[in-house]
């Protein structure tokens, strides 16, 4: 499977990641660290979800356990109980993640489908409830904190050091997971997803296989948690929250659970999105939800699935047909988004306490409000004309853009044979409970 066509872009990407810290601002460097951790978490989650069809709603449990394992190891080193090289600390997360994955997985994988999800959710909730009360282990409400010790002649004080540490573990872990999908057990995972009964009839102990795959997923989740602990040098019980589990599900689906790198892509994009937009608008959660809904409606195989589709179907010189229509689609999309954002942000501003106070001061009059550095009259036709115009133009162009894109797609993919789709590239599987 490794050939020049895949290895060259991968090496180029790796090279780019290595020299990236030279160009990034400190904020973006920190963002890059968190994006890689999120990507690793999503990859590990997708190993169980995408490959073996096990939709876990409680992966934050192993993420958190990995983080706390790493923190306790770091604390032991900090208090000079024994020496341990800082770059190897994620091994603690891996070990704890794997062990708990085995134990919890043994219970959870007794069931499939939605029942499996519920068991994983319950196990994570168990930790979420337990953690704030178990002070010695989880440090109560404010958690435990420690400091990265210097080792191997590296200080590990700066973000750049942490970046390279994270990058190293990300690359090694991602490669291991990719290699795992090529092993017989990894292949078995696909078979389990598609038809567990048949696998059992072939003589495999499916429970053991599912437990093992789940535990390996938890192992890499633990590594991601440990990397987070190293980056933050602290953690508390909120790491076990259902929110964290839900986030990784969301990111994986946006990225596309059916492809190997899709989840990583989704996690990186959504982490970056949250980071940037949360300081720009208080409505960012609404936008995040909208992205999820739109992806599920129009590209259920996710962003990775879309990229994969293009890689397989578009002729070598087919892109020249697609560039212009895609630009048109982008313009239409931006128009519609701009209209929507204008309305949402206007409503948001008008409902803030500060605006309500201004209105109260003006005896209930609808005073002008500020948005994007401009002032708008709430009931002026000019104000309303902006979103109406944007949406009107956008929706008029939408059918046109769709028609043109469909035609261009046909032209771009003409004569490309419908090669049999590799199992790992099929659409996101959500196995109905059997």
């Amino acid at each position, binding site marked *: 499977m490794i050939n020049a066509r895949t290895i060259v872009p991968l090496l180029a990407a790796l090279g780019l990641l290595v020299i990236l810290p030279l160009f990034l601002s400190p904020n973006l460097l920190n963002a890059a660290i968190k994006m890689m951790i999120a990507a690793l978490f999503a990859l590990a989650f997708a190993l169980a979800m995408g490959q073996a069809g096990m939709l876990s709603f409680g992966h934050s449990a192993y993420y958190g356990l990995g983080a706390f394992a790493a923190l306790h190891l770091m604390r032991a080193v900090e208090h000079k109980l024994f020496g341990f090289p800082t770059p190897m600390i994620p091994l603690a997360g891996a070990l704890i993640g794997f062990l708990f994955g085995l134990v919890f997985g043994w219970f959870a994988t007794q069931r499939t489908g939605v029942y499996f999800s519920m068991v994983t959710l319950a196990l994570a909730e168990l930790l979420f409830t337990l953690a704030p*009360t178990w002070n010695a282990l989880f440090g109560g409400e*404010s958690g435990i904190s420690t400091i990265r010790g210097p080792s191997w002649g590296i200080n590990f004080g700066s973000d750049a050091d942490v970046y390279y540490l994270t990058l190293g573990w990300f690359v090694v872990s991602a490669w291991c997971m990719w290699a795992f999908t090529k092993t017989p057990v990894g292949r078995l995972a696909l078979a389990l997803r598609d038809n567990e009964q048949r696998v059992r009839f072939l003589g495999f102990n499916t429970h053991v296989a599912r437990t093992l795959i789940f535990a390996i997923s938890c192992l890499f989740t633990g590594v991601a948690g440990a990397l987070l602990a190293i980056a933050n040098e602290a953690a508390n019980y909120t790491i076990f929250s259902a929110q964290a589990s839900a986030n990784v599900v969301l990111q994986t689906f946006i990225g596309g659970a059916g492809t190997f790198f899709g989840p990583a892509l989704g996690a990186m994009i959504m982490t970056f999105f949250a980071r940037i937009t949360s*300081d720009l608008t*208080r409505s960012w959660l609404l936008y995040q939800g909208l992205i999820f809904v739109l992806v599920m409606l129009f590209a259920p195989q996710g962003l990775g699935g879309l990229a994969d589709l293009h890689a397989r179907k578009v002729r070598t010189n087919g892109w020249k047909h697609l560039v212009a229509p895609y630009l048109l689609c982008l313009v239409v999309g931006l128009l519609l988004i701009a209209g929507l954002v204008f309305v949402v942000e206007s409503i948001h501003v008008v409902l803030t*306490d500060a605006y309500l106070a201004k209105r109260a001061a003006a005896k209930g009059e609808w005073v002008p409000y500020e948005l994007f550095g401009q002032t708008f009259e709430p009931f002026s036709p000019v104000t309303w004309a902006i979103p109406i115009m944007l949406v009107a133009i956008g929706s008029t162009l939408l059918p046109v853009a769709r028609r043109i894109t469909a035609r261009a797609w046909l032209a771009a993919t003409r004569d490309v044979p419908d090669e049999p789709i590799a199992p790992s590239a099929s659409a996101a599987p959500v196995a109905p409970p059997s």
Partner: protein
Amino acid sequence: MTRTIVAATCFAACLVTSVANAEPVKIALIESLSGGQAVTGKLFQSAVKYGLAKVEAEKAWPDGIKLLEYDNQGGPSEAADKLKAAINDGAQIIIQGASSAIGGQITADVQKHNARNPGKEIMWINVGAEAMEFTGPKCHFYHFRWNGNAEIRLKAMLIAMKDANALGTKVYIIGQNYSWGHDVQKLTRDYAKEYGYTIVGDVIHDVNKIQDFAPYVAKIKEAGPDTVVTGNWSNDLLLLMKAAGDSGLKARFLAYWIDQPGNIANAGDTADGHYTQSTFFPDANGEKTAAFAEDFKAKTGQYPLNVQGHVTHAMWGLGEALKALKAKPGDKLNVKALASAMENVTVDTSMGPIKMRSEDHQALVPLAIAVVSKDAKFKADNTERGFKTIKLLTGEQASSPVQPSCKMDRPKS
């Protein structure tokens, strides 16, 4: 990097052109501004803005101050990211308070940053994280707590209720199963002798998971206490009060957080006669507090609620410390000097003077103890009920001793 400067720009006009190129002191607010906890985050946000407006108007720092706002998305990990972003954006003072979980991350990060970047220190102004350990084992030179804590608040309520002959001799404790609930539980036991009561029962329950408190109330009823002490907040407090009301339990509640917005409206008559305390009630100190409340309402749209009193006072305290540095235009803020100044700062408020205690950086905050009543002058939540102050304690009266576990490491200067 997209920088969020949703700053208090309305003061920009005050800046004379000659100092326009000088850098203002940047203050970062890191709170939950979106999602489920945004309601709490916004309480902090509006009080911080209101408090800093006065600091800026008084020209506490010659080159002005600038507030940067960051949304911590309710999680410590995101808060750590936003703290880094704030530092990179040039913030030297960090304000946070809505959660001890996030406070734990911030205080550790501030400490590490200062250890790694001598000469570029930052400080955390704690305006609400109440866990005892921030002024105990986790105390450090660059942390200042301007709000109360479990002990101060309990002591104040005990003093006031004892004076009003409302405490009784039998006390029951019900609390949430995490560090805050444990703190309250332990302290209530510790103070039993001093205030002459016995503990007739004691129960700890899951946090925000219980839908029906009737079994707990039945147990309380059986024990027959005069007073029930609870540090519960949010749903755990509401449902507890409702269950107590439904069962006809006669005991008074000594509840830390009845004054959280929405509680009075939701609890209705089951809240009547219960005791609570706050760093600010509009009727606590006659004309003075009323005037402050009216001014606050005129600027922000509502009377100061819950945490908003001490958040405002903390900003003024910061202003006093900045003034004490006697900086000239063009000076750069030295946070080490600011922290040294803040150690001994006193700020005058409508509630009385608030003094920072240098031993553990816990402010001695005046506390008002109130009873929920229909006779209250200022009504809460647009209902007919409100908080009627029965006693106002000065910061010294309400203060609790320095925790021996706090070993403050002062920089040598």
